[in-house]
């Protein structure tokens, strides 16, 4: 290129570039507008006169929760920033000693979340997905409806133990491969793609409630129960120590019951173009057979995970679920089945920080009485419409959680709502265990949006689904799940002594 043409071009561009720079500061404020709106709301709340029954400290933490919630939903700053701001606020606004704040950030629940994430990465890295796919197709045959059911069930059972994000990441390539082997043109397999991919994501989502390791939200609720109600000197409160097995007894049957409904809803909503996938299955078989038999490393990985599972079931009461999770992660690293750089880049440590800060904030909501105050006012609002007790209250809590969780990550939703609903249970004379389960379980009902559940986010990344697909089928799923959960709360849980 000649120098004169470059100069000409530069002169031509000088004006738009200057305009762009001038716009820079405006764009900054526009993109961050929700951050400033949240701050303004915070200042407004802090400068208001104290409402009756609320201490200055309680008002401060309540303000911080509201500001954090706005930031969670609108995301003007990277979410881990909110965690940092919560810590800063606790020390500088509420005047809590920094040592105490630092200590409140780490707990068994946080260790459990961290350990489970490391395990999740280790499991995905084992490349067991082709084996699972093969096993699945062998069991189900080639009919689309049976494959969809098989995908939901297998994804679900695995997800209930290793976490929904793990299984969604493992099964997504299987789903896409089946779709692509059926037809190259995405438009010809749109409905088939929706059925298979939603079978993965909803299979994982409904299973995420099954065990504590199904998702971070479960660990958060377990942490709240222990923190709020457990008193080592009072044997009556020992029932608030919910361990792995106890959680499974409450929630696992609900997951199994939902699986057939998922397939039914998906097949009715998206009538797949192909009723039989034998062509794709044959090609998939050829692909898998190339891999040869299971290697010893595969067996070791399965063995370690099995041990972790047994540890969670039998040893978590004594050592804590977090310790077992971390032990499992250490075992995978020692066995050389996963490299640290892989773990390090696969785990989003910001999320761990976020949950740590959110739980710490939740505990202060309870300690300062702010959660009780909100709960009482909320209950006063519900009582004129008769939703202040029994199944009405359960439904109200469930709808509230479902609503909140569709706008933010479900872990954050449980962390924010947990203290309030548990106080609500106390104030209304309901069992905190039942209300806690309803909250944790309802937080999995974020079927309507892409960001609602981890599995949905992962499946959406395939590029096969539209955001509107989630709405079309999601509401049916939400209604089905809510009915099954309320039935469990009314009939099944009382049998377990809740």
């Amino acid at each position, binding site marked *: *290129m000649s120098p004169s043409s470059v100069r000409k071009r530069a002169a031509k561009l000088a004006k738009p570039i200057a305009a762009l720079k001038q716009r820079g500061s405006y764009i900054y404020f526009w993109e961050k507008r929700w951050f400033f709106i949240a701050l303004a709301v915070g200042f407004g709340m802090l400068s208001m006169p104290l409402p009756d029954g609320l201490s200055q400290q309680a008002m401060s933490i309540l303000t911080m929760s509201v500001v954090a919630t706005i930031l969670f939903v609108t995301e003007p700053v990277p979410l*881990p920033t909110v965690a940092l701001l919560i810590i800063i606020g606790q020390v500088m606004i509420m005047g809590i000693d920094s040592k105490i704040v630092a200590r409140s950030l780490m707990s068994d629940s946080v260790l459990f979340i961290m350990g489970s994430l490391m395990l999740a990465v280790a499991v995905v890295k084992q490349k067991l*997905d082709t084996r699972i796919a093969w096993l699945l197709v062998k069991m189900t045959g080639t009919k689309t409806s049976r494959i969809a059911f098989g995908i939901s069930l297998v994804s679900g059972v695995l997800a209930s133990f290793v976490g929904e994000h793990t299984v969604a990441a493992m099964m997504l390539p299987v789903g896409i491969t089946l779709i692509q082997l059926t037809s190259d043109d995405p438009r010809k397999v749109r409905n088939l793609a929706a059925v298979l991919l939603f079978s993965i994501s909803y299979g994982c989502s409904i299973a995420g409630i099954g065990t504590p390791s199904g*998702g971070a939200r479960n660990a958060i609720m377990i942490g709240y129960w222990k923190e709020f109600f457990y008193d080592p000197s009072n044997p009556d409160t020992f029932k608030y120590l919910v361990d792995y097995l106890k959680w499974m007894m409450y929630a696992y049957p609900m997951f199994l019951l939902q699986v057939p409904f998922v397939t039914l809803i998906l097949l009715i909503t998206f009538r797949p173009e192909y009723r039989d996938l034998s062509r794709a299955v044959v090609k998939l078989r050829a692909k898998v057979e190339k891999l040869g038999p299971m290697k010893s490393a595969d067996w070791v990985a399965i063995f370690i995970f099995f041990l972790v599972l047994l540890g969670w079931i039998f040893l978590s009461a004594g050592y804590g679920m977090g310790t077992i999770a971390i032990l499992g992660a250490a075992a995978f690293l020692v066995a050389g089945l996963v490299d640290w750089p892989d773990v390090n880049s696969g785990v989003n440590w910001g999320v761990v920080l976020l949950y740590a800060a959110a739980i710490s904030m939740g505990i202060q909501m309870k300690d300062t009485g702010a959660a009780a105050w909100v709960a009482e006012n909320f209950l006063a609002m519900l009582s004129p419409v008769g939703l202040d007790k029994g199944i009405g209250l359960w439904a109200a809590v469930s709808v509230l959680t479902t609503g909140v969780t569709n706008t933010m990550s479900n872990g954050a939703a449980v962390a924010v709502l947990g203290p309030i609903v548990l106080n609500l249970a106390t104030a209304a004379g309901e069992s905190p265990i039942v209300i806690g389960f309803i909250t944790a379980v309802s937080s999995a009902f974020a079927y309507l949006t892409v*960001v609602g559940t981890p599995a949905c986010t992962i499946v959406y990344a395939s590029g096969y689904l539209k955001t509107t697909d989630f709405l079309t089928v999601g509401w049916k799923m939400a209604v089905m799940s809510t009915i099954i959960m309320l039935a469990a709360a009314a009939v099944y849980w009382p049998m377990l002594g809740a």
Partner: protein
Amino acid sequence: MNDDVTETEPAEPEINDPEKPSNERFRIMVCIDGSEESYRGLKYAAKIGQAQETDIVLCYVRPIDQGLNTDGMNMSIARGNMLEWGIELPGIKYLKQGRDLLLASGYMGDDWDEEAFHTDIAGSSTGDNKIEYTSASGKKIVLKLKVARDVASGILDQWELGHYDLIIIGASSNWASSNTFKNFFDPAIAEKIAIHAPCSVLVARELETGHGHLICTDGSEAANFAVKKDAYIASHCQCPITLMSVALDVESEEAARKTVADAKAMLNDMGVEVKETFIRTGDPVTEIIESGPDYSLIVMADSGKTGLERFFGGSVALKVIQNAYNSVMIVR
């Protein structure tokens, strides 16, 4: 956070980056999202490009894989797994479809040189990818798969790389935010691009070639600039030009008539033929969008208001983009 594109990303331009302008070519970026609209935009770009030395860049923006919504396991794990299975990234198919469309229309020949490029982006397991096709005469077509924090900033970043003369984007985009709730308080991507892009932006809505350009002018300097610039584009694609002006009330009709007459004289001096001129009386936004559907697109100048004014009042151009029945081009 390891999920964010680092701020310094565009700061170090590659030497001899073929996306950088190397001469006085007309450069069009077409935002491809797989929708019918975006391919119509592409056809239009090909029509403009047919006559003059034009580079066309087809750009698909993929939001960066977020880790926070996946409960702490980074999306890169899932993405890496998909790539190991040999599954293409979303968007590649759409871009290839666009390329095939250009091939079928004869705009692009089979014999063009092909070259692939890759740029790493922090926090993304895949980074930016592009394929560049060059004809013997130096015409370029680029397929670009871009990763960005969000679609709008990805498109604007791409402008920084290529300094395009024109961006074409579909009005209703498949790229609506993945968070349904957010759509309520986030303006549409096409609108965002129209506001922020430093170059001309064509917001395609039922875009059809062959009905000519309707150029709106109020006689201001910015409008004169727009008239001249669009006349240049329109004359290259042999699109008939119509000039219009809106008088706010009956008294100013005379001024409006003079405005269009002046504009017509200006174009005639440039050697560009004007098919017809007319004026309307009333509210500019309503009159413009009502006159629009008879033409391929409405052409307007950016009225150059600052952000705050836009936020409260909104410029005429922006309101036309929001409410028009057909395509609108904002000229800068």
